[in-house]
């Protein structure tokens, strides 16, 4: 039995220690907002936060989580940065099919939480691991900048 703190709630699950967090979230806990895209940390669709740090949950075994807090797309709107990112995503109409956007939003939120005014290079660095097959990249960049602008005091 493993106890995980997911979105502020302790959840006890009976899963193998090497099971990636992605499948624990999706298939055991029932939080399906986090997506499966590649299984090899190549596409970013599965991005969640571990104590605020973005990780690829498809390659992160549950044993590696320890006592760290997991935040998923379902709860990211409860953080200040997450809320701004979601707002900017809607304002700039970033989304097309939407399948990658959970991961995009998680990566963008982690970026803004530690870097309130990211440069284009910062955005490239934080977001190049997240594939969007619909090609919404220009709008993702613009939305991150808009969210950052909103973050200014």
């Amino acid at each position, binding site marked *: 039995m493993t106890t995980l703190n997911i979105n502020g709630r302790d959840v006890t699950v009976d899963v193998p220690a090497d099971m990636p967090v992605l499948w624990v979230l999706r298939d055991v806990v029932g939080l399906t907002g986090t997506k499966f895209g*590649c299984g090899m940390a190549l596409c970013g669709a599965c991005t969640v936060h571990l104590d605020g740090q973005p990780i690829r949950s498809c390659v992160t075994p549950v044993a590696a989580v320890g006592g760290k807090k997991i935040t998923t797309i379902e709860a990211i709107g409860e953080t200040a940065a997450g809320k701004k990112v*979601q707002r900017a995503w809607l304002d700039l109409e970033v989304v*097309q099919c939407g399948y990658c956007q959970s991961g995009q939003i998680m990566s963008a939120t982690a970026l803004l939480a530690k870097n309130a005014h990211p440069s284009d290079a910062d955005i490239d660095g934080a977001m190049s691991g997240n594939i969007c097959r619909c090609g919404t990249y220009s709008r993702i960049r613009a939305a991150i900048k808009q969210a950052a602008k909103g973050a200014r005091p």
Partner: protein
Amino acid sequence: MTAHTVSRRDFVVVLTATGGGLMLGWRVGDRLGVETAVAATPPGFAPNAFIRIGRDGRVTVIVGQAEMGQGTYTAFPMLVAEELEVGLDQVQIEHAPPDDKLYANPLVGFQMTGASSSVKFLYEPMRRAGAAARSMLVAAAAQRWNVDAASCRAHRGVVTHTPTGRRLGYGALAHRAATLPVPTQVTLKDPKDFTLIGTPAKRLDTPAKVNGTAQFSIDVRLPGMRIATVAASPVLGGKLGELDDTKAKAIAGVRQIVRLDDAVAVVADHMWAAKQGLAALVIRWDDGPNGTVSTADVVRELDTASQQPGVVARKQGDAAAALAGAANRIEAVYQVPFLAHTTLEPPNCTVYVRPDGCEVWTGSQVLSRAQATAAKVTGLPLEKVVVHNHLLGGGFGRRLEHDYVTQAVRIAKQVEGPVKVVWTREEEVQHDVYRPYYYDRVAAGLDARGQPIAWTHRLVGPSILARWAPPAFQNGLDGDALDGAVHLLYDIPAIQVEYVRHEEPVVNTGFWRGVGVTHNTFVIESFIDELAAAAQQDPLEYRLALLGKSPRARAVLELAAKQAGWGTKLPPGRGRGIALMYSGWDTYLVAVAEVAVSPSGEVRVNRVVCAVDCGSIVNPDTVKAQIEGGVNFGIGGALWGEITLKNGRVEQSNFHNVRVLRINETPAIEVHLVRNSEAPGGIGEPGTAVTAPALANAVFAAIGKRIRKLPLEPQLRSA
């Protein structure tokens, strides 16, 4: 639960089970519709729009077209709401059930979302459905007040009797409206009175897509559901030979190994156990005759096939004679590779087979085919198969196939209870229905001034339509493979376009964002650039001079060129390329791409400026988004996209060797819209189609190297 029909030729009106309201649709049959549109397949409802208005005033638009990012779940409600006189904020959406009679796409005659056709073909039918419903609601109010309907007006879901100011909401009128005769004719709004169509209205599907609540089919969860993952024969046509599943069965959470003749699936409690189980299987495949094939074999056969004349698809003047008499004759061979879709949501399908019925949850561009295949595999009658469509995590043509549904039902037949079959990325890349490899021979004759007097284009490749929609394959011609090629706009006196059907049975081939047009635009627009270079003329001026009869094409060329700063100087190693796209989509699109080519052959796309004339626009922001996304999709495909075969097996497997565009590689993209009231054209695929030639022409402008074979970067490195 009373149901009434008004048995008129074009409509059926039904009181819905939930609360009694007005339900309206175009019909072909005479049967009753009962329940709600999604709860059961409403028999006898007709092919286009559906509207349901509850007694609570809720307006539901049931969309027969799938939402895969292209914006139908906003565009269609906009079309309905405009004529129905409700706000978009008052509308909710429902996925339509499978039904070819009700939701046929006029392009193909069955329920299909693809070919950039949804708005193009359903623009007016959706508006008519909205207008008919509005007229009935107004009539109901007029009847209630005993006044002339002409003295009433509808606005935001309320009918007002203008002289007295009396008001009734649609909810209050729904019951009465449902008893009224359906108008045989409706008056559509004058476009100048539109308040919604043509505006950048906010998408209705996005709020759920930013907080994790949007439901893709991969997110389906059912009580007692198992999860399976699958490995099909790595060689097309191969069969499952010996299988040792001892180790797989020993893995905690693995419940069952399902054998099919050409695949094996591991059924488990969760995907992790299923994946581990699959990896632990010791499988021997019987490869069959394709087990030794490589890409080079495919290309060799295409080359051989290209030596023979094809079926003539367009003939104008005597191209052979004109070529023979030309001052300068230019010939080229163009090739485009197999391409995978890599929709980010991998193929998946949940199926529950019971003795008396079957339920399917999936994301499909051909929902009625998903139903039909489930019926066929289970042996159940069609009406015993319920199919739930979902938001699609990318389509791009992949979900125009139902192979993954068929396979999931075959697996589910052997499983107790519901099972969700999810493909790994590796399975998706290696068992895709690939964009065909096309091999084209083009030739042109130029006169002494460099003007083309003859153009021949022989394209060689498989016919997707002959497999996918056999009636559409006629007289040896595949209209989809030829799309764009036969639409050549350039005013050349002698033109001949030929099609050589050559199947590539070693892999499955199918639609890939613009398939025919995407391939043909690359060939045509690269080759016209070659002619301009041969004539030592500016590529833009050269094109404009040949478009005297195509003012819309000229206008987009001029607009894009102006916005892109065409003709201004760029530093060494950088270049600007232009391309025009026109096809059966009835959209004119020009892209000007600006690239930098490194000495080692890496291409950096800095900027892409587009101008588009797609006629009447429903949502200009969606048009821009589709062009932006289409361009980005096209860049990855053009620079790196390639699926190759060795020993009958696809060599690529995941995003480390299927390179797709990422945010750090994406250019600045500008989209300039031409606004007019022409008939609406398609917009989902043009951005992809125009991109490869714009890039190839930009590479030529940058370093003087003409690339005739995609993808570009490997060619630049090997050149």
